[in-house]
């Protein structure tokens, strides 16, 4: 009966003794981790303060789920921080799904909500007046100025037709979905804006998850009812909408096929756009769930090729396709090269793809960064990188929540069955050399509540110089966390503005030289998971008290240097207002 010859193991008793308790009750792995990590930051100092209630935000997400384990109900929850009224502070837009599932023709109580931030910092629900209260089965949101008129427009992804809303500049939006020829049915998720053809008008990349069929039933490894994985449904290709804004009749054209995107099918969730190959043309990186991630390299002729496999961004170190959910691109290790960070399912680590010196190639360096092991037990979705304590390096936050059932958490505020899927979030501090440690009890207000978190966005909503975060959670409340971390230095915020286009210069590369070091950020509004964020780029400067220069590489290739900028403030730098550089 014993399979192998049974040798006496002299050392096993000692091994058994290492760190083991012989109690036979299952132990939550979470429980053991927090105290160990807590030593990183002093207890009693709340680095993130949940200011949701006092800010007047009362959004509650509804999935419509009633225990039938329909996959769409566990994937939603986008959120956006953006300044829709151009008054200089960030407003909040929360995506809702449905109060019933399947969505009924009758108006669902669960609709998207827009909160305008007032001068006193309180948020007021202006959904009705704004026209942004879409009642589709909402998934995600993206924000950018599609018509170059100086205000920010809104794209909403749904399970069902997506919607495009044009900002009228007076606090209201018009639904221009049909007018602008946006016809994206199916299950859309994250969206990113990019000017892939460099014509000055922002195009739209929409990830599509799967060809979903309601009513399919799946079970977990133990034979219990559970959510299906993506491979229970046919894979689909993503959608690229070209902005024909320069034409007589502005609108969007679906160029997915001609651009080459239909050659790859998967289950896309997260997306981020960057000029990874550093050839001056924006590329697209897509996190795919259980399929190879895609790195669409811009061929500079209106087409893309997926070169993810040989560029090292498709699979993890072990050559495994992971369950890619959320994604961010940033120079995490401050070597001047953009890296990628992708969140995944439990039993897979989140993956840090370090950008290599030969442009647009990556290698999985998750283990070296400390970002792997702590994430093994969680399912990550939204993720953002920002300098929490202004010490000059990028830290990382991750919104977690399972998609595979577990034992119910009895201490959760969520009721059954949702308490089988809730998890605490993660926040990591960068030691400056690209090694990360979980923040511990100091971040407990963000990392302790066990919820089913999905959308995560970052932005300095109170304009006090540090970056705050917002989270949307399935069947939970959207939460606004104010960054109260002790400051380790000064900071600078930059808005890169192109006056010719009357909009933020999406794709501009901003480099700040300060205290003998340089830091680079790229202007965008979309990454993470289903979420959109402040286009201003933010730099923690550490102990440096002065700024030598700010260099911007504009999307059209113009390089300018700006000097005479002082720290601890937000500045708007306009194209053609700096010193041109060779």
């Amino acid at each position, binding site marked *: 009966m014993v399979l*192998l010859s049974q040798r006496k*193991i002299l050392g096993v008793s000692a091994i058994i003794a290492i760190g083991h308790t012989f109690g036979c009750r299952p132990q*939550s792995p979470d429980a053991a981790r927090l105290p160990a990590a807590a030593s990183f930051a002093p207890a009693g100092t709340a680095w993130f303060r949940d200011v949701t209630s006092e800010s007047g935000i009362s959004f509650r997400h509804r999935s419509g789920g009633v225990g039938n384990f329909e996959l769409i109900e566990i994937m939603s929850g986008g959120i956006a921080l953006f300044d829709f009224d151009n008054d200089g502070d960030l407003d909040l837009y929360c995506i809702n799904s449905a109060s019933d599932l399947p969505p009924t023709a009758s108006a669902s109580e669960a609709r998207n909500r827009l909160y305008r931030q007032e001068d006193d910092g309180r948020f007021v629900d202006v959904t009705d007046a704004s026209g942004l209260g879409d009642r589709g089965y909402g998934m995600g949101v993206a924000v950018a100025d599609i018509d170059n008129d100086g205000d920010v427009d809104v794209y909403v992804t749904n399970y069902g037709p997506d919607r495009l809303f044009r900002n009228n500049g007076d606090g209201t939006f018009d639904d221009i979905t049909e007018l602008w020829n946006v016809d994206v049915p199916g299950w859309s998720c994250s969206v990113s804006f990019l000017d892939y053809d460099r014509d000055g008008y922002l195009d739209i990349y929409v990830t599509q998850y799967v060809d979903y069929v309601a009513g399919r039933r799946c079970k977990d490894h133990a034979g219990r009812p559970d959510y299906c994985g993506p491979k229970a449904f046919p894979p689909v290709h993503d959608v690229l909408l070209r902005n024909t804004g320069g034409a007589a009749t502005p609108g969007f054209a679906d160029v997915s096929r001609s651009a080459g995107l239909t050659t790859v099918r998967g289950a896309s969730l997260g997306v981020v756009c960057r000029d990874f190959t550093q050839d001056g043309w924006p590329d697209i990186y897509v996190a795919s769930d259980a399929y*190879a991630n895609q790195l669409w390299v811009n061929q500079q002729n209106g087409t893309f090729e997926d070169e993810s496999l040989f560029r090292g961004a498709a699979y993890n170190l072990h050559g495994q396709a992971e369950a890619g959910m959320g994604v961010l691109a940033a120079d995490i290790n401050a070597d001047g090269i953009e890296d990628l960070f992708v969140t995944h399912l439990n039993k897979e680590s989140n993956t840090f793809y370090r950008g290599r010196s030969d442009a647009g190639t990556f290698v999985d360096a998750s283990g070296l960064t400390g970002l792997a092991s702590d994430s093994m037990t969680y399912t990550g979705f939204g993720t953002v990188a920002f300098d929490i304590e202004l010490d000059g390096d990028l830290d990382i936050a991750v919104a977690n929540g399972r998609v595979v059932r577990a034992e119910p958490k009895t201490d959760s505020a969520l009721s059954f069955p949702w308490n089988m899927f809730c998890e605490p979030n993660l926040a990591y501090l960068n030691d400056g050399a690209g090694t990360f440690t979980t923040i511990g009890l100091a971040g407990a207000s963000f990392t302790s509540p066990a919820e089913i978190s999905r959308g995560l966005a970052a932005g300095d909503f109170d304009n006090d110089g540090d970056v705050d975060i917002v989270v949307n959670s399935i069947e939970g409340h959207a939460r606004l966390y104010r960054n109260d971390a002790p400051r380790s230095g000064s900071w600078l915020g930059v808005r890169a503005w192109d006056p010719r286009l009357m909009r933020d210069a999406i794709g501009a590369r901003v480099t700040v030289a300060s205290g003998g070091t340089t830091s680079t950020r790229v202007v965008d509004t979309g990454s993470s998971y289903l979420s959109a964020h402040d286009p201003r780029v933010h730099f923690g400067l550490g102990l440096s008290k002065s700024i030598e220069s700010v260099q911007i590489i504009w999307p059209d290739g113009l390089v300018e240097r700006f000097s005479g900028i002082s720290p601890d403030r937000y500045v708007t730098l306009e194209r053609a207002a700096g010193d041109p550089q060779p």
Partner: protein
Amino acid sequence: MSRKKKHWRSVKPAPKPEVVKRQITPLLIVAGLAAISIAVFIPLGNSTSVPATTTAATAIEVPEIDTTVMIHRTAQVIDQTRNAILRNPQSAEAWGRLGQVFDAHALYDHAAPCYRRAMQLDPSDVRWPYNLGMVREFQGADVDEVMALFNGFARERPDYPPIFVRIGDVLSRQGRLVEARDAYRHAAELDPGLAVAHRGAGQAMLSLNELDGAVKHLERATVLVGSDGPALASLSQAYAFSGRIARARRTARKSRAFGTKSTINIPDPIRYQVASIKLKR
């Protein structure tokens, strides 16, 4: 470098590969047959479930789980295996078996304490620390704990190549790539036909930017198993990083054609014994 981190190196000198292969191949066959017969013939006890409350002193220690929403066969196997412990609470085999049942159904929080109990009752059975190491890694346990379990196994079974692949996997996830590379290479030395060891060695070397070695091992892996999409993807990456772009593109296309699912199996009778529990469902 700490001594603990190098435990796997302190194994006895490896036998010649040919000898090892002769040892391993019959072992695998026997193990596979044994696993099947275990799944089919092991008496799982009285089909009447013993209520947990009726044998309080023991039942408190046996992991409980709500089986009412599970499919009948799974619930039955769990109940029967639990009952076997209740009848004989000092049986390491019974505890280990329950650990395997939970493990096979991805109920890791329940499997771990059972394996621990089995280890306590019979420290000589190397299956329990090995399986516990696997489960603890799935649970996200501290790497030192997992490595202690795997190293203990490796000391006892230095002729068992899969353990060095497992060690390589753990170490590479920790970013200890040099040690991981050496562990994979050791597995490949023990069994030169072990494609998963070559793939692991190649992938570790790719991360270490040891591109010639990476190409060598990954080419070997793809010769051994030509249909493994992940190995081909890593090989295409190694070609690209070496500047052989055309070959990288061709290999990437081949990888894409085979898909994302690995076709390289690791011949691991101990884990197969666990997997077979579910396969027989």
